[in-house]
């Protein structure tokens, strides 16, 4: 009886996941134009979010769906040959341990951040770098992000590993998203789009609940470029003003059938049921850590007063 019920729910889950994947794309390549809610708002809304799941009548706590954008490094690499549930579980435990010591805030490509790293060669033994996040990737403890800034007319990019113990502090000075998931075109853009003052103060957001999307269209320098930007469907770039032959070649080389390729999408993503399980696991711990930090901050303010 139990086996039949389990098989039924499994089949339903499969069908549901299929439709979920069709309806809401879970891959990184698409751009969602809906503003994403922050952790605060998500907390208020869905602390009590519960699923009437189990046969035994126990309610199951489920993390808010925005978690897959806020904490994408908790999802493992989708390549099936290298997946192992036990190893992913142990890695998640280690990630949460590290997060209990250092606050790794929610950020997106396009956010301006400041990272303080222990550096033996610096005069203060700490090096602070401010820059805009142009790309982020990796899964688990290998998660990384790249910050870009222009210092003394020289473009500088630094790749930081999020869970490296040399990192002392990660601050998000401006939390926002851009129209693209990867801002590598800033390397070929005019330098003012990548310049941020090194002593920039953290900006207070007016509307705390929603992460704004900056609809900025960046102007590129004249060619030659590092990549063929006309072939990449970039939303955040001004009209490239190239001769028609570039666009013709781009059309020849394009793969418009990929957006209909379900199996490609499937292989690039973790199924929705697994994502739910992973984030449900992680959700409660992250909430506890956030709570402790708020208390510490409040105590800090009180002590100062």
């Amino acid at each position, binding site marked *: 009886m139990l086996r039949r019920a389990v098989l039924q729910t499994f089949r339903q889950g499969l069908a549901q996941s299929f439709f979920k994947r069709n309806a809401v794309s879970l891959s990184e390549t698409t751009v969602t134009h809906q503003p994403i809610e922050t952790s605060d708002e998500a907390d208020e809304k869905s602390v009590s979010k519960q699923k009437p799941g189990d046969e035994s009548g126990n309610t199951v706590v489920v993390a808010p769906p925005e978690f897959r954008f806020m904490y994408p490094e908790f999802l493992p690499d989708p390549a099936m*040959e*290298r*997946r*192992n549930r*036990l*190893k992913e579980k*142990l*890695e998640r435990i*280690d*990630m949460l*341990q*590290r997060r*209990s*010591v*250092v606050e790794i805030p929610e950020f997106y490509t396009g956010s301006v951040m400041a990272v303080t790293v*222990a*550096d*033996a060669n610096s005069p203060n*033994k*700490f090096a602070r770098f401010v820059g805009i996040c142009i790309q982020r990737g990796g899964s*688990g*403890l*290998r998660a990384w992000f790249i910050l870009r800034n222009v210092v003394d007319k020289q473009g500088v990019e630094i790749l930081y*590993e999020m*869970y*490296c*113990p*040399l*990192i*002392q502090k990660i601050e998000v000075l401006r939390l926002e998203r851009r129209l693209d998931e990867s801002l590598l075109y800033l390397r070929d853009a005019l330098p003012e789009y990548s310049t941020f003052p090194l002593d920039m103060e953290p900006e207070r957001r007016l509307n705390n609940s929603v992460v704004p999307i900056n609809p900025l269209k960046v102007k590129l320098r004249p060619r030659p470029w590092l990549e063929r930007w006309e072939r990449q469907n970039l939303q955040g770039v001004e009209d490239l003003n190239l001769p028609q032959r570039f666009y013709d070649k781009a059309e020849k080389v394009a793969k418009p059938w990929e957006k209909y390729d379900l199996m490609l999408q499937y292989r690039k993503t973790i199924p929705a049921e697994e994502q739910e399980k992973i984030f449900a696991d992680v959700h409660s711990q992250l909430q506890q850590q956030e709570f402790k930090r708020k208390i510490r901050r409040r105590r800090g303010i009180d002590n100062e007063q």
Partner: protein
Amino acid sequence: MLSIVFHKRRRLVRRLFFNHEQVRTMSRVKRRTTHPPYWHVLKNNQRQDEKISSDNLRFVREVIQDKYKNKSPIKGSDLDIEKKEWDPKTKRSGVIARNIGVQHMWEKDGKKVVCTVLHVLDNHVIRYVPPEEYAKSIIGAKVFRNRKPLGCLVVGAEAANPDRFTRQYCSLFSEVGLLPKKRLARFIVTPNAVLPPCTPLTAGHFVIGQAVDVYGKTIDYGFQGVVKRWGFKGGPASHGATKFHRRGGTIGTGRDKARVWPGQKMPGHMGSERRFCRGLKIVRINMKYNVIYVKGTVPGPTNSIVQIFDTLLPRRKFTEAPPHPTYFPPEDGTLPQEDIWDSSLHVFGSPSISV
């Protein structure tokens, strides 16, 4: 300064006198087979579409449970410790594990270290073959041709449903009363490190900071060309090269011997070969999940089975007694430390490193 120059000279000398004969003789050795040795018992059941009713299936399952349920694990107090004193020449048993992936960790000075995560499966000792008997077997005779014979412990891992195996295979385990195991391995042991059958082996068998050797079968690349298999340079990609981009080129001189030498490097099957990674350091042991973190990488793809045992490298052997003959959890019910880290590693829950 003098020592560096000396090493350089030695390396040059070694290159000049490369032993071609060794390569030629080893090229005739068969390196892989798809079938097990002929003295092995047939293992897997031929799947037959037997239409068994669900009631009968349930009954079969109950019978299996009854047959295998009364075996209790061997405790430390069951062994007579007087016979089993450790000395530096002792060879302990090894362990069968699964390579579950690679995790990045950091040392206390901030240097990143790539560690392989090895999950020690449910190992049990199946049988002990004493030295005299083992020296008479086919493999034992080869191993101990010119030296004093040692004993052999047969260890099994990953218990499975007896339905999928043949009766002869299950009989290997029935004397011991264990559920048949999917994987078997043999470990050479000295007589003072013998373990009785049904002894469980866990991650606690190893010590933090010790060096281990890991045996595995390398990644199977299939039939590969000469560029990937032997690292040949191939030919130019352009400049008029006609059909010569990834080929081998010449395979002999035409003068000397006037034939292709055996062992000539050519395309062929690459990978799926026995290899040992020696002297890997254990940097972390998780006793709760039976997982070992080893510094470096091991042969084989993720989720493949490997064998781990104490290193043969003479300078990295034990100076103090390890858990001998194996680790047994304390009988007074106190739980051991769940997660043990090497002193060189940065523990994730501890504060950030400041240089």
